[in-house]
């Protein structure tokens, strides 16, 4: 009977020990996580829109060419819209491969520069 009781206590002690070890190790591993890992794990969860990427790959080049020709700041020399045109042109150049952004800029340019 005594041996059975002691065995029971030994099992309890072992289970308690394992739980403590698990908690301590978990805390340590959380502490060890560097900023790099946290940053990169965030990027693992973000979804990249592949349909937009396909548009970037196939349509952005032609749209960029059209926009650079249509809204070149030289076309607005001597008008009130020169500065606006320069700003929009700069944005167009910065988003050369971003189709969605280029489409937005086209709308913006049409409304602000009064060109159709």
């Amino acid at each position, binding site marked *: 009977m005594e041996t059975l009781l002691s065995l029971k206590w030994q099992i309890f002690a072992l289970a308690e020990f394992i739980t403590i070890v698990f908690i301590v190790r978990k805390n340590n591993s959380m502490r060890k996580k560097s900023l790099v890992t946290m940053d990169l794990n965030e990027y*693992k969860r973000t979804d990249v829109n592949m*349909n937009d*990427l396909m548009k970037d*790959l196939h349509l952005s080049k032609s749209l960029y060419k059209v926009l650079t020709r249509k809204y070149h700041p030289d076309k607005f020399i001597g008008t009130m819209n020169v500065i606006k045109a320069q700003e929009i042109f700069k944005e167009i150049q910065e988003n050369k491969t971003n189709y969605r952004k280029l489409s937005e800029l086209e709308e913006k340019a049409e409304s602000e520069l009064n060109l159709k």
Partner: protein
Amino acid sequence: MWNRLSFIVDWFNDFSARRNLTRNFNLSAREAFVSGVAPTLLESSVSIGESAYRHVFSKFMSGGFRIKALSGRPLTRQEIISIGSVVLENQQLVRKLISLGWDTLEVHDNAGYNGLKWKLYDHSGIGGILN
């Protein structure tokens, strides 16, 4: 033991995330080709990658993200560069590729012998942290 268990769970999570990314890319490329948006059909796959381009998060023997263009004719160097540059200018995608263990971007055609490789690490824009 617990660390190893979490390592195994992470490995499977990464594996499914990598698979989803290539699958989504291929589905979108197929849709774009069928709808007429894209003149060439693109297909992504996993390759060994370039050993010189490895970084700390690289996956063993599968660090290459390969984009194959089914163009039917050899692509010029400029055309390959334009495909690669669009991918590399998408910061979010590059960072995702790096975080999922890819280190090399490969673009090549199906007809010729042309192909180019880029080191993703150089285009991630998080060099400050990785350095």
